């Protein structure tokens, strides 16, 4: 060892170096080394390399099947075109559901319509054995639940553990400002978390492209990139939260217990409870109740209309000299048709209006409840992250709303072009009833029934929609960082 005393300029120079950027690199290097040599790093590495590529592969296979199913459905529909086939529609699967299943599995895969009724199909996942066994594990789940947990495991002893080991005291006996220690810990921890994650994701993407997944089509690649970046911000948020709790406690064991509790609340409880709480604050009738109400309404108005038409039909039968109990809809009598329409059309218009009102009202209430649930859930970064990911993947609430809107628009089109040119009358008299139905004379059906069209949102739209949530995630991270800094400045290192 070199001899040195206070006055030596040489010593001063070396000491000068201690507070330069070099000490940051020293801290960073130590942090990475310390984490990499710990068991949790092996756990992280194994879980990432196992779960991410495997989930991507399995989900891609599922997507392939959905896509084949969708194309088959389209073929059947165009074969049935001209008959009632044109009145149904199928929803294409979102390719990015491979990364975030979202609503893709629970949303009806298509629908069929009849006058005054929209019948939704079963969801895609219905009866899908692979989905039922494995499908719930997607990239979103791995990051949201597994990596957030590992981020906590990386962070829990960051401050309180070093205090217990006495190393924090030793570090701070040097000319190192506290923020630098914090920065070294944050950067080191994030690098150690991000690198295995990125490697595993890269591996997964290679497997995807190798099996024919269209990663480079449309804007998929860009969206995947954004999802990966968001994932890293999310992992950082949890890592910082872990550091915050660690710098608020003096025992790493306590920190770990508190963090497990926080994890359960943020990742498991809040996203589910938000829906329940929103349901209590803003109750909405179930879809089944609404369907029944609509059915009742249709029946009532049909009966009213029948009563109003009864005299016309009986008069017609008398004129024609038909036998007792025989009624007819005479399409060749323009006067009868004119008078029938005059009476029936106002009822039909009223039915259309009232059905639309029930639908609109129901939709509005559902939207409001959903918005409330989302806002409640936003107290957890895990929910915010899920919103961003599903919005990016076109498997979020936006797409759900878009789909239902598209279905309603399609119904309106079919209604205008087809149903409004049809008649359906129900005449009742002393326990007897007669049904008449068909195309009104002079109003032929269009050759080509309208096709159902569904387009995923443009990338700019998805981005704009998820931007507030991304910002919120960043705000969470910044908040945790500042709070950690403030806690650590006051931290009692003894």
């Amino acid at each position, binding site marked *: 060892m070199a001899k040195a005393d*206070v006055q030596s300029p040489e010593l001063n120079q070396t*000491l000068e170096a201690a507070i330069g950027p070099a000490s940051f690199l020293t801290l960073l290097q130590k942090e990475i080394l310390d984490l990499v040599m710990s068991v949790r790093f092996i756990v992280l590495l194994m879980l990432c390399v196992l779960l991410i590529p495997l989930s991507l592969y399995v989900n891609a296979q599922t997507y392939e099947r959905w896509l084949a199913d969708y194309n088959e459905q389209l073929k059947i529909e165009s074969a049935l075109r001209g008959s009632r086939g044109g009145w149904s529609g199928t929803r294409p699967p979102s390719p990015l559901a491979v990364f975030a299943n979202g609503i893709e599995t629970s949303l009806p895969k298509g629908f069929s319509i009849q006058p005054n009724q929209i019948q939704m199909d079963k969801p895609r996942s219905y009866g899908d054995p692979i989905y039922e066994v494995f499908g719930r594990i997607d990239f979103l789940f791995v990051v949201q639940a597994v990596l957030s947990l590992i981020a906590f495991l990386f962070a829990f002893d960051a401050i309180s553990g070093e205090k217990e080991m006495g190393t924090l005291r030793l570090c701070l006996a040097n000319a190192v400002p506290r923020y630098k220690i914090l920065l070294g810990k944050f950067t080191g921890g994030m690098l150690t978390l991000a690198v295995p994650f990125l490697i595993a994701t890269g591996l997964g993407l290679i497997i995807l492209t190798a099996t024919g997944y269209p990663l480079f089509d449309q804007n998929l690649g860009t969206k995947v990139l954004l999802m990966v970046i968001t994932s890293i911000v999310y992992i950082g948020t949890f890592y910082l939260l872990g550091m915050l709790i660690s710098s608020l406690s003096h025992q790493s064991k306590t920190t770990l217990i508190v963090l497990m509790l926080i994890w359960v609340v943020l990742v498991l409880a809040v996203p589910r409870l938000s829906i329940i709480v929103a349901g209590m604050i803003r109750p909405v009738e179930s879809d089944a109740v609404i369907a029944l109400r609509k059915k009742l309404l249709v029946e009532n108005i049909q009966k009213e209309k029948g009563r109003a038409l009864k005299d016309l039909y009986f008069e017609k039968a008398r004129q024609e000299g038909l036998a007792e109990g025989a009624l007819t809809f005479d399409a060749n009598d323009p006067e009868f048709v004119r008078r029938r329409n005059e009476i029936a059309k106002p009822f039909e218009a009223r039915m259309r209006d009232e059905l639309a009102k029930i639908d609109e009202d129901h939709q509005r209430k559902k939207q409001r409840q959903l918005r409330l649930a989302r806002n409640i859930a936003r107290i957890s970064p895990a929910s915010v992250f899920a919103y961003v990911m599903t919005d990016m993947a076109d498997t979020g609430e936006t797409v759900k709303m878009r789909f239902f809107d598209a279905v309603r628009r399609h119904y309106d089109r079919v209604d205008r072009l087809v149903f409004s040119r049809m008649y359906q009358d129900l005449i009742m008299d002393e326990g007897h009833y007669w049904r008449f139905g068909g195309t009104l004379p002079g109003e032929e059906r269009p050759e080509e029934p309208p096709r159902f069209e569904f387009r995923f949102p443009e990338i700019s739209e998805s981005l704009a929609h998820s931007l507030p949530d991304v910002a919120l995630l960043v705000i969470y991270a910044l908040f945790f960082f500042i709070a950690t800094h403030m806690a650590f400045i006051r931290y009692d290192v003894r």
Partner: protein
Amino acid sequence: MIEAINLTKRYEDGVLALDSLNLKVNPGEIYCLLGANGAGKTTTINLFLNFIPPTSGTPLINGIDVTRDPLEAKKYVAYLSENVMLYGNFTARQNLDFFAKLGGKKNLKKEDYYMVMREVGLPERAFEQRVKEFSKGMRQKLGIAICMIKDAPALLLDEPTAGLDPASAAEFIETLKELRRRGKAILMSTHDIFRAKEIADRVGIMKEGRKVMERTREELEYENLERLYLDYMRGGLGPEPEERRAS
């Protein structure tokens, strides 16, 4: 080099842990703080490291007020705490390397680290061994090595011989003498009266936060330190008059 002026610490819960302490350790001097558990020794050392703020008074390192400019002051001080665990996953050398770099020592080679570890009496086989397999004494020795490698002009040692076997403690005393020869100012707290008498240039006895006695090496030639210590502990003797302390 190391100086306390009317240093006082009252903890948040009202405990007066340090009451108007004055002491000075010059370069090339070893100052031993004696005192029962809870006398305020660790509090004193923590105040010199700015781990806790003083209630009043000034701790100085190299003439720098620690409370005013802690980062500047810490450049000139090396520290060994009671029962340090260190980084268990790291080897002895990796621990030493990290703290050396943090202390501003660059470009040290493996040999430099080995030399210091040899000097503190760490067995050769332990150099590349993980610290979590170390005994308490071995960790203590590595702590001393960490303290030494910074090569700072002021040393604060909190019970450095606690946990050392007699042979290692004797070795440690030799190391301290070498450091003194190099001109370091050393402030150490200890329970070991014999060693204190052997190496201290100045001894202070603390009781309930007050320095009740201070003797120089020369003065101790004619007095029995152990007797003095026990007398003060028993409370037989009150604090010395002010003039005596000021000397």
